[in-house]
């Protein structure tokens, strides 16, 4: 059982790392000194929940809390919402859907603003997750921003990743194609009582078949709990096979480094005299934008696509 007192100390520890006042080591040590480091800590199951806005992620997380608690497991939730790029302010509203657990000391819910970070997480999310783990929570659920882009950063944090979508989100399957098959362990088509749910699930299954990994595609109605027990079964199966995540995490890390390298290379190439000459012709209206791109692309050394 988690002491009420631990909530306060964990919350303040997260603020410390979030605001850059102390690093993870210092805050974790402080938590331990405050007596919140349980025997066997550092073994929480970390579940990522990602997907486009309006997919019902928070409601689904609320159902997950309910299920883990029924199973006697304590749960911490880290829910990330976007910061405004202009004012840096944020409205964090995810916990509204989880308020029924407020009286339960076995549930800790923390909202985080994404601050300047992209990729669906806040800069300190990873540390917050580790602190919640250190404080003794059995399960840590991370809900990503969900602004509609593929949020790959979750791979570096979570053991199991649930990608949530809904029927009739128009291009949601397209969005998913853009890379989520790489990170998903489980696909959930939520709001499955809406028209088009089966079609969306079928599309996803076809897509999964093209890939290398086996990814279950489930349908849920988080609002009334339909399909949630199947989701728990799938999560249980995944939690038993956590080593697969190590491979995925390495793949992801390599892709990220390759991407960063490609960006550096491209920027350097654009500084070359040849490239500068082409850009000068563009400035002088001698070239169209598309012409300029066609001429510049071969200089970048990366893969060349027709557009």
């Amino acid at each position, binding site marked *: 059982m988690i002491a009420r007192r631990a909530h306060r100390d964990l919350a303040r520890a997260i603020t410390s790392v979030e605001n850059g006042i102390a690093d993870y080591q210092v805050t974790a040590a402080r938590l331990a000194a405050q007596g919140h480091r349980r025997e066997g800590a550092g073994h929480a199951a970390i579940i990522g929940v990602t997907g486009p806005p309006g997919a019902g992620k*928070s409601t689904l997380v609320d159902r997950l809390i309910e299920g883990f608690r029924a199973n006697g497991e304590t749960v911490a939730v880290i829910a990330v919402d976007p910061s405004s790029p202009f004012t840096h302010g944020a*409205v964090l509203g995810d916990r*509204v859907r989880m*308020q029924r657990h407020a009286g339960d000391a076995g549930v800790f819910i923390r909202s985080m603003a994404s601050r300047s970070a992209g990729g669906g997480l806040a800069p300190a999310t990873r540390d917050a997750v580790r602190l919640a783990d250190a404080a003794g929570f059995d399960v840590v659920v991370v809900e990503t921003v969900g602004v509609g882009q593929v949020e790959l950063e979750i791979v570096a944090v979570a053991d199991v990743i649930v990608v949530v979508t809904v029927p009739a989100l128009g291009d949601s399957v397209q969005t998913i194609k853009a890379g989520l098959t790489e990170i998903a362990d489980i696909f959930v088509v939520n709001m499955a009582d809406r028209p088009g749910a089966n079609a969306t699930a079928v599309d996803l299954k076809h897509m999964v078949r093209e890939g290398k990994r086996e990814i279950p595609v489930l349908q849920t109605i988080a609002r009334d709990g339909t399909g949630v027990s199947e989701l728990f079964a799938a999560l249980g199966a995944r939690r038993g096979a956590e080593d697969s995540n190590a491979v995925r995490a390495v793949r992801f890390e390599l892709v990220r480094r390759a991407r960063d390298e490609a960006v550096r290379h491209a920027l350097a190439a654009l500084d070359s005299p040849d490239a500068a000459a082409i850009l000068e012709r563009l400035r002088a209206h001698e070239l169209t934008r598309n012409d300029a791109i066609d001429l510049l692309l071969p200089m970048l050394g990366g893969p060349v696509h027709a557009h």
Partner: protein
Amino acid sequence: MQTTEKTIADEQREWEQLTLLPFTARRPESREAFRTQGGAVLERVYTPAHVADIDFSRDIGFPGQFPYTRGPYPTMYRAQPWTMRQIAGFGTADDTNARFRFLIAQGQTGISTDFDMPTLMGYDSDDVRSEGEVGREGVAIDSVDDMLDLYAGIDLEQISVSMTINPSAWILLAMYLVVAEERGFDRTKLSGTIQNDIIKEYVAQKEWVYPPRPAMRIVRDTITYSAQHLPRYNPVNVSGYHTREAGSTAIQEVAFTLAAGIAYVEEVVKAGIDVDDFAPRLSFFFVSQIDFLEEVAKFRAARRVWARAMKERFGARKPESMRLRFHCQTAGVSCTAREPLNNIARTAIEALAAVCGGAQSLHTNGYDEALSIPSEPAMKIALRTQQIIAEEVGIGGTIDPLAGSYALERLTADIEKGCFDYFAEVDKRGGVVKCLEDNYFQMELADAAYDLHRRKEASERHIVSVTKYRDDSANPVVELHHADEGAADRQLARLRKTKAARDANAVSRALDEIVRVAKTDENLMPATIAAVKARATGGEIVNALRPVFGTYVETPVF
């Protein structure tokens, strides 16, 4: 006609060049654009050219005749003035009953009941969530015993009784019917209204228990039950008041309200009832805001839009199905806490707009509206304001007196167009309930409210004694209604007494029956009436159905 219009437009251009421009060059106008309170941009001056698309016979016509722009009835206030219906409710049933009798003695002609938050939300007075709120903002009603005392001594066949109640409306209606029965009144002679407009709760007022779909079924059951058993009763009062008070535009107020009306009609028609068998009993509720001209236009537009929607969408044939009748309340948000007596002037102007717009009944706010629930002196002046308009001003002598004003007709037509645009958008998005679930109305409202707030902070319109002519040296003190700290304890005692006297087994059987019915598609009303009669409380009935219907949790939008 064509040449005349051209001439007028030409004349206006000429006037602008020769008269206006030299004048504004010397003395510019005080601001660039003048907007109505509801957000529409006003023309400097309106001419026949601005109303060239409006056809008298098609769009304006005569009172009591399609499209009812000028009023639902051919005689309007020449027959009798509107119903003066001041809302009241605080403390226990006895306390509120005394206020009703005071208002009737002062000449009030209808009763309107305000319930406390626990009653509105379906909690009993002894629920932990009710603490601090029992009898505070309205009267506490737990069981039919309370309802008996609430209307004691009032002839329910003679006076119409309105109840401002929503998610738990069907239970309060059941209580009302049991009161009528136990006091020997004839159901078919009962006239009155329950608000029972659950759609606007999700949009604006935020009093809910169950999610939208089961909540719509409850509304449907009350409408069909009324259609069969209560020929003079209004089972739903579709309300724009709360949406506007929450910061919507005038167009949104009318559009969302009438879209809700359309959704209720669809729901009942789907249950196999002919539109003309229940549509005549639908009634509406709008605010009367401070922007006089826009408000008069709004009421006229609402009637025209509803008539056209009922005829074109549902093929209504009876005139009664097409003519919109509405209750009106002056705008609570227009009242200020500073120099509260100024609210009397605001309220008078708003009341006059409601009357010029053809309201069927009216509540005028007390001058203390921004401070507390109304005191007796505040309510008396509010009622007197209506009586002055009815008896002294003489505005009721001619029907729809402002018709034909270029500005008014233009604003009326613009609001109408705005409504049909919203209807098309709602249809495109899959209907009203879908829009609620997707937060469409909520987001539209949030944006409008934020815009209104920013315009207010930019002092686009000043508020006298607050943003202009502010006098910090003198804020006259007015005597306020004082919450009766003993009322909650008295109510808890009443509830204990009811619970002690009833047959607990009969209550639990009656609750089981409601649950059984809820799981089928049968009408909820008969089982609810039986439970209420057995002295089941409102909270018990609401809670029994939570497992069947679920509990609503809002996704907030900003």
